[in-house]
């Protein structure tokens, strides 16, 4: 098993504020009461097969606790790298933002190239207590398999957040890697006035398959959710958005806005949208917009004729398409994500 969580942070500053940020294995030793209180409360072992697998064998991950009223002064970041071939990577991450606190958390994932497949089955639980806010950003670039679809990481992740009263959780992700992706960062909007947001760019190329989206579960009153999903498919890949907006019977005045845009590059890839809406309360307002567009040869020629070569033209168009989501990332990540988008689409048209 191989989970090396490399925490880059200023330990002293965090310590002064009472912020706990350490590998989960250490946290279990040093703060067992805290971990025990929250671990498995959002994603129980029974949730799904991969969550069960993770619960049984998780090796490491991060534990983060922000005390009441504390605004974490810096972005916390961890960096996961799968080193061994033919292995499973099982992280468990738990972030608890106590009442009135704020934290922005960055997760970056890479894996070197290998012929055989690797499994990444992580579980991330976020708990935002009353008036707290958690921003969770992910840039994922697991090895996607080669141009013939051989090798690559299987990325099956369960990510879920629980929001208490007036709390807010934003999931922002840029997914460019892994051979098969299956993840639905979700928000349980339990508390009144709680807010859940999901911003995603998922890129698939060659033979990659992505089935990703979110679940926004509206339980409390006056809850609000926003979903902006951008899918870019190239090569022979399949990119699907699967989202659920669920409004329970007692969830008065729930509001949702969803926008799912797909960009197709070439003629052999696919983009699919599966929006599920379950509204059990008459006062719910749910909006859904979807667009599908293609980078056509005419657009590329137009750019060429203005002196912009094809690689640059694709980058320009993809960037314009993804801007809305890229703007949600913390700056250091946004620049890296933009470059990653360009690289993952290299050679996709031509």
């Amino acid at each position, binding site marked *: 098993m191989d989970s090396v969580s490399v925490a880059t942070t200023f330990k002293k500053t965090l310590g002064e504020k009472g912020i706990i940020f350490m590998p989960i294995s250490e946290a279990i030793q040093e703060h067992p009461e805290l971990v025990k209180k929250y671990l498995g409360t959002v994603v129980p072992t029974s949730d799904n097969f991969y969550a069960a697998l993770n619960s049984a064998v998780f090796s490491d991950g991060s534990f983060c606790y922000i005390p009441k009223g504390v605004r974490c002064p810096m972005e916390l970041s961890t960096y996961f790298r799968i080193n061994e071939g033919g292995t499973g990577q099982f992280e468990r991450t738990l972030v608890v933002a106590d009442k009135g606190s704020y934290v922005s958390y960055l997760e970056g994932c890479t894996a070197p190239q290998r012929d055989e497949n690797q499994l990444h089955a992580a579980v991330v639980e976020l708990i935002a207590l009353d008036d707290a806010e958690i921003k969770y950003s992910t840039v994922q670039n697991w090895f996607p398999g080669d141009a013939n679809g051989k090798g690559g990481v299987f990325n099956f992740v369960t990510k879920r957040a629980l929001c208490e009263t007036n709390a807010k959780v934003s999931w922002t992700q840029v997914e460019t890697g892994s051979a098969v992706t299956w993840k639905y960062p979700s928000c349980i909007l339990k508390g009144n006035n709680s807010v859940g947001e999901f911003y995603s760019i998922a890129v698939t190329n060659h033979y990659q398959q992505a089935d990703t989206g979110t679940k926004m579960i509206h339980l409390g009153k006056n809850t609000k959710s926003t979903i902006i999903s951008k899918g870019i498919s190239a090569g022979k890949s399949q990119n699907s958005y699967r989202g659920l907006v669920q409004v329970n019977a007692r969830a008065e005045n729930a509001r949702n806005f969803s926008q799912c845009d797909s960009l197709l590059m070439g003629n052999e890839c696919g983009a699919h949208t599966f929006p599920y809406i379950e509204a059990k309360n008459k006062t719910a307002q749910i909006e859904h917009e979807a667009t599908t567009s293609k980078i056509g040869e005419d657009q590329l*020629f*137009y750019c060429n004729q*203005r*002196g912009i*070569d094809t690689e640059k033209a694709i980058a*320009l168009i993809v960037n*314009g398409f*993804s801007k809305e989501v890229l703007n949600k990332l913390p700056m250091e990540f946004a620049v890296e994500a933009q470059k990653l988008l360009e690289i993952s689409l290299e050679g996709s048209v031509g």
Partner: protein
Amino acid sequence: MLKINNLHASIDDKSILKGLNIEVKAGEVHAIMGPNGAGKSTLANIVAGKEEYEVTDGTIELNGEDISELAPEERAHNGVFLSFQYPVEIPGVSVTNFIKTAINETRKAKGLEDMPAKDMLKMIREKSELLEIDRKFLSRSLNEGFSGGEKKRNEIFQMAMLQPKLAILDETDSGLDIDALRIVANGVNKLKSKDNAVIVITHYQRLLEYIVPDFVHVLHDGKIVKTGDASLALELEAKGYDWIKKELV
């Protein structure tokens, strides 16, 4: 500036240009007229470097250099500009962002640094005023939701920003009302100089009243069959293309 010699070109094995010859010198305005299907847009696209067309014979020289092997962006860097008949939409990319990228890519190809933001802004302001383009327009996605007239004005705005040596206007007048026509023509006229050249492709004589050509060519069945001065356009307007066809027999 541009010298085309015995150009033969086809698309999907269908022969369109069958031995076209034309010479355009710096400082000149040439009009190319002709019935539908004659090959006018084909010629424009081939000079711009569209890959779908196959050049089967002949040469295309820009300032003495054969450009038939150059990629479209390389031709652009050498000063070729095509104002498209049907400008395509590029959602998410603003007019400003697009033209900035175009200008800077061209500068990069010449070993220059990016244009300083201040100068870029000044130039954008100048040229958008020239084409009577509202500033709000510049932040919209390129051509998305633009009317026909707005698209064409945007094309000439880009021409004004890029300052090409050879501008080919492919039916720039189609879809324009009287006012838009005047604005576009005025823009083109202001950009004319003794160092650049313009080829105006059109069906109708109307545009040529504003952009007065030095030479008028008639393109028929893949070749230039008649060349004259501005008065030829008037004659065509009066007699129709059938007159040319009869003359050839």
